[in-house]
């Protein structure tokens, strides 16, 4: 039932998108026939598919499957950051600070990555750990401010975004982060020991950060659904007053939730700095992932595996969107439209039911099922 709703939602999103695209062509070339509209839309979608999953035009499986690995590469930071935002959502916090947390984590991990000399595995793990810690500290700062003074996390995380951006921009102009002998605000390349190793050799961009994202998903799942701390998280998220009465230290939950949330977003930052872009980075390293992560978390309904799937889907859109723009000249922004429509339709099952005239499910509120099942 739920699956059909989701599938229906995606279908609607796709048809809606066709209407949008058709309207776009209609204004620019009003004399074109419907046939042309169908062709261009079809072309765009096949380009999207070829850019995201499998490219039929390339010879052989190894080259054809490359887009899928691109998808996974794009998905890696989205999953990690999405998990962070989702975790905060479950505690009733809105972490818009992904950008700042990613920037700081990337800067810290990057510094470890290019300035220290450590043995192969240790170096990577240490750099990742430093990145997670810095992301966590930056997120925890917002949590601490909320817990101690009641400052709203939406304000503080937005402000911390700007502060982190300017801080990293400044550091990129100083010898701390700037590549020696360069005038560009850019770091030197990472030492090979500190980068995520390629999973399928140098021909593919996919790096071991994806494995970290899988591990993070498992950890977050365990944390939220099986651990004592996760129970407190969810209790505070459902009703902070009731949680306080029940003896849960709501303030420390806020702090720890933001620390862990920031740490996960920090992991996304390391995936960018140590995996996707190994040749040194500037202050745009976050690439808007901090905000994309919010949508990913929403689409995943703040469930760890849901976020994982949503991250994969959005990674596919990202990878495919660029190739679609290159091949068919359809602006990559259409991907945003499709993404947001999907989230809207998945978030509103009653609407989908109305459109398809489906019967209302007999048992009410399937969303609460999990709390009962536990």
């Amino acid at each position, binding site marked *: 039932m739920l699956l059909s709703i989701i599938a229906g939602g995606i279908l609607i999103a796709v048809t809606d998108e066709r209407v949008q695209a058709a309207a776009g062509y209609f204004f620019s070339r009003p004399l074109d026939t419907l046939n042309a509209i169908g062709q261009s839309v079809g072309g765009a979608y096949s380009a999207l598919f070829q850019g995201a999953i499998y490219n039929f035009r390339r010879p052989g499986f190894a080259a054809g499957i490359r887009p899928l690995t691109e998808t996974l590469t794009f998905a890696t930071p989205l999953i990690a950051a999405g998990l962070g935002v989702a975790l905060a959502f479950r505690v009733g916090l809105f972490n818009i600070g992904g950008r700042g947390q990613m920037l700081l984590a990337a800067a810290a991990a990057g510094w470890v990555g290019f300035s220290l000399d450590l043995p192969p595995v240790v170096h990577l793990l240490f750099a990742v750990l430093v990145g997670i810690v810095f992301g966590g500290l930056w997120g925890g700062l917002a949590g601490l401010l909320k817990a101690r003074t009641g400052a709203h996390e939406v304000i503080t995380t937005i*402000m*911390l975004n700007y*502060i982190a951006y*300017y801080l990293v921009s*400044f550091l990129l102009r100083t010898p701390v982060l700037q590549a020696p002998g360069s005038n560009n605000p850019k770091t030197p390349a990472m030492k090979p020991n500190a980068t995520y190793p390629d999973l399928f050799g140098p021909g593919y961009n996919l790096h071991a950060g994806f494995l970290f994202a899988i591990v993070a998903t498992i950890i977050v799942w365990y944390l939220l659904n099986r651990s004592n701390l996760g129970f407190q998280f969810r209790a505070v998220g459902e009703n902070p007053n009731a949680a306080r009465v029940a003896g849960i230290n709501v303030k420390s939950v806020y702090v720890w939730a933001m620390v862990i949330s920031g740490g996960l977003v920090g992991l996304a930052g390391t995936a960018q700095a140590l995996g996707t872009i190994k040749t040194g980075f500037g202050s745009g390293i976050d690439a808007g992932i901090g905000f994309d992560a919010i*949508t990913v978390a929403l689409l995943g309904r703040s469930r760890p595996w849901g976020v994982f799937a949503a991250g994969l889907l959005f990674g596919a859109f990202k990878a495919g969107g660029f190739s679609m723009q290159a091949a068919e000249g359809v602006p990559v922004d259409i991907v945003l439209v499709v993404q947001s429509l999907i989230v809207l339709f998945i978030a509103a099952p*009653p609407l989908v039911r109305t459109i398809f005239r489906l019967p209302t499910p007999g048992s009410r509120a399937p969303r609460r099922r999990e709390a009962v099942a536990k």
Partner: protein
Amino acid sequence: MTVAAVPVNSEPALERTVMRSWKVPLALGIFVVIAAVLFIGFGRDGVSTFRLATDSDAFKLPDLVIPTRVGCVVMTVLLAAITGYTVMLARAARRVPLWLIAVYGVLFVVDFLTWASAGAAVPVPGLLVGTLGLSVPLIFGALGGVIGERVGVVNVAIEGQLLAGAFASAVVASVTQNAYAGLLGAMIAGVLVSFVLAAFAIKYLVDQVIVGVVLNVLVTGLTSFFFSKVLTPNSAVLNSPPKFERIRIPILADIPIVGPALFRQTIIVYVMYVAVALVWFCLFKTRWGLRLRAVGEHPTAADTVGINVARTRFWNVSLAGAIAGFGGAYLTLGAVGSFNKEMTAGAGFIALAAVIFGRWDPLRATLAALLFGFAQNLQNVLSIIGSPVPSEFMLMLPYIVTIVAVAGLVGQVRAPAASGKPYVKS
């Protein structure tokens, strides 16, 4: 001055004893330390010039010239004195009046500018003009946010409404070659975004934050798509709207210092003055406002006395969208003169912060929006006069100020009780 000295007074006030809040003195004290270290410790020689008049002023004020080092010391001592006074107030368990904090803030800014502009001149009217210009979309957005949240619908979609307004106003004004038609188009676009928000939040009971965030993405995607696909190839027809002329209000525009900023503006800004006053008045002094707030605070009670909760919410959220869309029109018709991809650049989120910073009050939210506008504008001024410390730290300062202000002064804010909660009639 340790953090541990702050009594944590965030527990629900069941036992309302005399609460001595040390937050304000503490926050002010931190700034005094910053001022002492930066402005005196790293004091600079020379004179700071504040240019108070523009070339077109009727009667010109002379430039204000302050010897930098002496001026900084005097002002920092004054700051310390105010802080001392707040300590006394806190000890007597009395509230610190808002105007005192405002005086403190202005003094700190002047202190900072004096220090930063040693050997250079600060164009004060230009600073204020720029501040207002950057604040206009924030203020409209914040007004929309206040109305939305007061009626019980969290409006995270301000960004989307601003962007939709900017887009629609550019296109409509270009096609009709009439800027007023563009304004109308902006309002309609804002309302349309609101319709979606309202429909999903009120009828389909989707989490309002989710709808808001997604709508932002949706509007960003749609406008960027149409911009690349349709507007850019036909920019002469579709993206070259007529701009509003600045209207000079005869006598008021000649008021020294503030006159140029406040009364040599486009019609959008004058509408803004009216809108701020009107929203405040209607929200707190009319039956409409009372009903609106009742629905936002306690929908069940409002329903009991015969107010249609869903309808009230729906139309007021639409109104909020119209106001925010209007603000978006300022970006294209008032400031830039054409639409650009993602031209709001996060203004909607800053407006959201202003709503919360302003405690869901139109006037306070407007002040908060002005503060953010000033913060963003400071960047331009500092790049002109050249700054003594790395510019990034200067740019950071406003945001740090905001955090300290939110943590120290606003403290635990209380949203309208039913904000963000869908109402299901039982």
